């Protein structure tokens, strides 16, 4: 059947299949088999998803591997999957982190294992569906479905304040997404039958939730309506990102979640917010997006600086990493709302980078927490001598997060700053301040945990990272170096899709004489330098 041969369907539903398999065929007591099967399904999903990298042709159709069938014809909702360069990268990130999340949980989760792996796999399907759906109803279904497993992951296997953190996460994101639903409906009726009571006629097209169709008509929407739809989307996505001042759910959720939950939260869930902006807000509502730029940039910059300053004051490693996410996601938003190709591609690459480095940091914090059951910075010191392999891995990921050249963070941040600089020098200056602060808190944390003498007796005999733990981190480290040294394939995959977004959201930019010169290309030379040689 066509349904089962479509690559996207397979990728999306293999984890769900795994969940069902475990529910029905693996007994609760056999935790070994549960772990094995969960890992197999998540791993198989990752390796299948690698095919996307080859199957997707950056220079082909805007959306590829399309699977489209009527779902609820009465309202024009379709079952519509498809990917472009933006979603391909995020899907790959999701399957990789999902695999790692399962693999990293063997010793961290010691009760109710069956439920745990089932929810983790269901969550995986939900997230993948979000990045694949090109129909608003379908997108919304996946967007919300995913909340439930995450609620359980935090609420059952979380830390001491798990009950509070779980419901806060759930309600916070729910409020955002239901408002987004109203925005979707406004868009829908603008395209079709209009708004009866207020006498605003629609375009009279057949009703549809098809994003690609709506992309054709939405830019012509009157600004007054665009603005409201943008605001509705903004609430939904900004809470997910999270942008200042909607970030307050994040430290609670990240800190209380089990390690794998934090990895998924930081690595993938936050990207769903930024993905929402790139996929929907910018191309559907270009005029309103341009109108919002000053606000969005201001919030992004506040987020960068504020997140960094708060991170600096943390005594808990996990909290520190959580606040660093606020700062890093500020960067992503800054690049995005530069509304030019550099800014957007930097922003997208930084989403991947943040997934890798922050995911890695949470894994690393989880490893030490399993040994000491504390994450306080003052509880450690001198670990470099005790756990050399662990310290090395931690160092690499820290550097990637800071943005040291040859590692991925550098490429992303530099591209973002270039894009921002292109719009306004001061934006870049403010962003650069964030990098300096970021280096400060990360290095400070590293220093306090790993350098100096071992002051706490119980730290003296901590076992180093074991083989399984190392293997959870090695793929991340390899990718950090790959993107840092040779980011060209990544840029190549996203480039045409990014360009299409810019064409809609700021048509003037690409047509402007300055852009028709090879100027933007030349500006990106430094970071693409390894590629320049070919």
């Amino acid at each position: 059947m066509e349904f089962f041969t479509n690559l996207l369907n397979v990728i999306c539903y293999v984890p769900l299949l795994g969940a069902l398999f475990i529910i029905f065929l693996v007994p609760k007591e056999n935790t070994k088999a549960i772990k094995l099967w969960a890992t197999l399904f998540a791993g198989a999903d990752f390796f299948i998803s690698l095919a996307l990298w080859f199957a997707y042709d950056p220079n082909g159709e805007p959306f590829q591997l399309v699977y489209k069938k009527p779902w609820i014809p009465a309202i024009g909702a379709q079952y519509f999957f498809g990917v472009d360069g933006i979603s391909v990268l995020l899907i790959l990130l999701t399957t990789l982190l999902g695999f790692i999340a399962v693999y990293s949980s063997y010793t961290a989760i010691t009760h109710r294992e069956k439920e745990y792996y089932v929810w983790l796999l269901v969550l995986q399907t939900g997230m993948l569906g979000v990045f694949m759906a090109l129909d608003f109803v379908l997108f919304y279904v996946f967007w919300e479905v995913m909340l439930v497993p995450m609620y359980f992951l935090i609420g059952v296997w979380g830390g001491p304040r798990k009950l509070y953190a779980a419901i806060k996460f759930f309600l916070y994101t729910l409020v955002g997404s239901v408002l987004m639903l109203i925005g979707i409906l406004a868009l829908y009726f603008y395209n079709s039958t209009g708004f009866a009571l207020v006498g605003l006629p629609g375009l009279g097209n057949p009703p549809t939730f098809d994003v690609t169709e709506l992309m054709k008509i939405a830019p012509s929407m009157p600004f007054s309506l665009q603005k409201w739809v943008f605001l509705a989307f903004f609430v939904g996505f900004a809470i997910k990102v999270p942008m200042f001042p909607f970030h307050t759910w994040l430290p609670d959720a990240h800190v209380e979640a089990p390690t794998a939950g934090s990895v998924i939260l930081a690595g993938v869930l936050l990207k769903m917010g930024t993905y929402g902006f790139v996929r929907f807000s910018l191309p559907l509502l270009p005029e309103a997006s341009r109108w919002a730029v000053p606000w969005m940039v201001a919030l992004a910059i506040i987020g960068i600086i504020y997140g960094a300053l708060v991170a600096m004051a943390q005594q808990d490693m996990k909290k520190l990493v959580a606040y660093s996410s606020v700062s890093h996601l500020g960067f992503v938003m800054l690049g995005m709302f530069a509304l030019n190709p550099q800014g957007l591609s930097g922003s997208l690459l930084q989403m991947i980078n943040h997934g890798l480095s922050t995911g890695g940091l949470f894994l690393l914090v989880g490893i030490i927490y399993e040994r000491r059951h504390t994450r306080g910075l003052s509880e450690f010191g001198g670990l470099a001598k005790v756990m050399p392999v662990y310290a090395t891995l931690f160092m690499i990921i820290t550097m990637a997060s800071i943005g040291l050249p040859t590692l991925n963070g550098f490429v992303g941040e530099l591209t973002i700053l270039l894009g921002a600089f292109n719009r306004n020098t001061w934006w870049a200056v403010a962003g650069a301040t964030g990098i300096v602060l970021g280096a400060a808190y990360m290095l400070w944390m590293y220093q306090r945990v790993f350098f100096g003498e071992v002051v706490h007796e119980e730290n003296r005999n901590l076992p180093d990272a074991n083989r399984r733990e190392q293997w959870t981190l090695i793929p991340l480290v390899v990718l950090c170096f790959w993107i840092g040294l040779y980011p060209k394939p990544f840029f190549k995959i996203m480039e045409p899709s990014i360009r299409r977004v810019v064409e809609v959201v700021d048509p003037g930019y690409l047509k402007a004489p300055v852009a028709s010169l090879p100027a933007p290309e030349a500006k990106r030379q430094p970071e693409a330098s390894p590629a320049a040689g070919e």
Partner: protein
Amino acid sequence: MNANLTVLAPELILAGAGMLILLAGVAGKASQRLAFALVNLGLVAAAAGVIAVGERDDGPFFAGMIQLDRFALYFRLLFVVAALLVCWLSRPFLLRAGRNPWEYYALVVFATLGMAFLASGVNLAGLYVALELMALSSYILAGYYRGEVKSHEAATKYFVLGALSSGVLVYGLSLLYGAFGTLSLADLSQRLAQGPRSVAATAGIFLLLSGMLFKVAAVPFHVWTPDVYEGAPTPIAAFFSVGPKAAAFAMLLRVLWAGLAPASPDWRVFVSWVAAATMVWGNVAALTQENVKRMLAYSSIAHAGYALLGVVAGGPLGTQAVLFYMLAYTVTNLGAFGLVVLLASKEYAGEKVADFRGLARRQPLAAFAMLLFLLSLGGIPPTAGFMGKLYLFAAAVHAGYAWLAVVGVIMSAVSLYYYFRIVREMYLSGGEGTDGLPILAEAWGVRALVVCAVATLLFGVYPTSTLDFLAPAANIWPW
């Protein structure tokens, strides 16, 4: 006059079944099994009758009293199925409570009969009689625990307030009759459209409206609901929350849009504010309830508020939204109440939120079913509740009531807080030795739950064929 008795087959079957059950009870052949078989037989036959009679376009029948359109067909089917599920849920309850089932089942059947006439009635006099038949049966059912003060309180409150609201409604009817000289909805709508109306007519419209809003338990006409639901036997509370409520919505839709449509600019403002107040207060009041039945009572108030969105919006889309929502809400709410019934409860024990503690570890399937129902009540996909709400909010946005839709979505986010209090107890709280009560796997109750759970998922994932069936039902009035 078109008075062909065969078109009344389902109603006649219901009436016959109800009386037969009563007679068998009086004859002293009292056995739970026989009573249950009879009520099942009666309701299934009635459903078959509804389908056999189907839609008739040669109506209205009986001096313009009854119209058998798709709207009536759909609602009568829904009522009969809901009553059937309620009877299935009642069986374990009646067995455990060791109570006489005869009059219980007979009253459920009579209430269903009233509801059936509410769905097909097109004359206000007939509608009023149907409403009273339903209400009187309900009052007695609410007081079914004869020895319990709480049950007495429920019945008395329900009766006194219900009688008051019926009085208000009848007063409205008489004013309308005085002003227009007719109680037929079609004639009423014609005369209303002809020109300016008198103060008496306006007062009549609003009194009639208030009476109906009492029956759907909209704020500020809702105060009876929590006490009645709490005091009534749990399966009966489940029945009240779906059957009579859906019937009242059928009446509300038909009276407002078939009869009072020309006056819609006036009552729409009123109903839209009532809808907002209902959504807000229902959800806010539910937040702090410790008793699951009270919580579900307030939640059912809130759900009436959502459904009112569709009533206000009107049009084919709004009507279709209400019709579909009634179906989604019926299966979902019956499921949620069903679990409360099966929670090893006796009299009023086993109704606390804390009684669900640790259920997920002891009975994962039951907990998962409850999770499904709660998600559906909260409007989280992939459940029927989500599809229903999507339709309602879409109808509201379409009609230009975006502000009401915003109130609705925010309040449904709020509602998740109290629904998830139960989820928290089931999945997150408790350890060994601090557990709540078990769910009793009683055959018919479990069957009802399975039907509800499957329907909740099915209508959430694939609502298409149901929506296609409903489309003609929503198009019966000239918009």
